[in-house]
């Protein structure tokens, strides 16, 4: 008898389910749940990450000064206005692949992938979380730099799109790496190399003229110099040119990384 009653009820449930899995509300809900999920997941490490980023930013600002007996003012300005790039990229580009590598090693990776949330919202939630420790670190590094080298920055409103574009491109590149490479050891080596390239072979904290010509040319097509260009433009008056081109380069890198991510994360297995 009970079985006979059940069928009329089921058609009304099925359409609801179909509706629930699409639309802005479903997406926002998924975003919010993943945001909380990521925060909870990292609750023990987030304070450590924030402290590390603060130490990294201030460490760079103060440490590069030690390379010189007397640091010239232009070198000091380059260092201070380049540090935000490193603060913004560290979580998204360097730590994310390692976090995912650890998830793979301990087996929670497949579980996260199985959650009923749009993958794009997973990415956006992670992006938001990755900004939480980065922004204070960036501001503190700038303040310490100004105090240490005795100059003032000239911050303009375009700092907002510059920071968002830089951090988003870094995060989506990190996401593509994290999900594209399946061997944890390789992931760690690649992120180690990235730190190296970013810190040493990209004109982020020193002018491109101090690089060999060919390397300066290569950097025109890599994302890191462009990130430094748009951020420096928003912090220091009259120091950089080619801001529009820099945004285009970043857009291209973000697009390619987004496509790679969509292909790797989106396909069913």
């Amino acid at each position: 008898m009970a079985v006979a009653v059940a069928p009329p009820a089921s058609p009304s449930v099925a359409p609801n389910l179909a509706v629930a899995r699409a639309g802005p509300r479903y997406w926002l809900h998924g975003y919010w749940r993943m945001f909380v999920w990521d925060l909870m997941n990292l609750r023990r490490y987030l304070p450590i990450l924030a402290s590390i980023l603060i130490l990294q930013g201030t460490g760079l600002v103060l440490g590069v000064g030690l390379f010189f007996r007397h640091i010239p003012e232009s070198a000091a300005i380059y260092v201070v206005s380049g540090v935000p790039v490193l603060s913004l990229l560290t979580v998204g580009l360097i730590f994310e692949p390692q976090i995912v590598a650890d998830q793979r090693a301990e087996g929670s990776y497949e579980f996260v992938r199985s959650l009923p949330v749009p993958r794009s919202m997973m990415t956006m939630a992670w992006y938001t979380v990755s900004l939480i420790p980065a922004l204070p670190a960036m501001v503190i590094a700038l303040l310490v730099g100004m105090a240490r080298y005795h100059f003032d920055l000239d911050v303009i409103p375009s700092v907002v799109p510059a920071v968002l574009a830089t951090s988003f491109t870094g995060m989506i590149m990190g996401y593509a790496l994290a999900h594209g490479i399946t061997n944890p050891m390789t992931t760690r080596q690649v992120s180690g190399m990235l730190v190296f390239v970013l810190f040493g072979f990209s004109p982020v904290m020193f002018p491109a003229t101090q690089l060999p010509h060919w390397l300066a040319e290569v950097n025109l097509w890599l994302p890191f110099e462009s990130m430094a260009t748009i951020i420096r433009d928003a912090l220091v008056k009259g120091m950089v040119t080619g801001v529009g081109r820099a945004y285009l380069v970043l857009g291209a890198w973000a697009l390619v990384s987004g496509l790679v991510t969509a292909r790797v994360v989106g396909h069913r297995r």
Partner: protein
Amino acid sequence: MGATLTEQPGRPSTPDLVSRVRQVHGHWLESYAAMLRFDIASQRTSLPGFLIMQILFGVGTAIIYGFYIGQLSREAALFIVSGAPALAVIAIGVVAVPSMVTDRQTAGTWDFIWSLPVPRSASVASTFTVYTGLTFPGIVVTLALASWRFGLHLHPTPMVIPAFLLGSLMATSVGFGTAQVIRNPLVTNVATNVLIFVVFLFSPVMFPIDQFPHWLAEVQRVLPIYPLAQVMRASITNGLVHNVSICYAILAGWTVAAWTATAWVIGRRR
């Protein structure tokens, strides 16, 4: 079968101390050789990567300092070139060894290794041998490339052997001991990243220590990195380094401390 049975009573019926010591000694050496084969075979795919990584780290860092500073004097270039091998060694101690330890922690390989019927000291000694040995080709290539890049000729003395041997052993031991003490792979990874930064920015490896604030210089004198750079620099240059014997003593102290920490961690039953 019969032969074994008849031989057995004739074996050490009254085992005297010397032969037992010999047996233990022989067992340890056999275990060490077996673990050496195990270590090399199980890491045959990752060891070449570490070798390349340390060369890139040593040479790369030398080149990077050049980019940051811009115009280099000959003395500054000499400091950079003679500091490069120390950085190659540090890369093994700070990056390669902890990375190997954490991978084995997450995979549960350590539990397997500790369960093998070999002395744990033999397992650890084999790991130290593999990674200390791994640094040597890295040191030579790094030194050659860095000298070529900056157009300098160095003057190695016979002291390169003790300097590079102790330096490499110290770096491997400290990296191993620290990663074993920390136990949590994520924390070890974070520590590795932090240490690379500290080494790169706040360690007087590639520039003179008198560019540092006084208090920081005093701290660096007792930490292992500055003495490591000093003993290596002293063995390949003339007149840049004084009081090298105290640096040897500090390195030996750190090596012993790392061995003690390692023994404490791996000696415990769980």
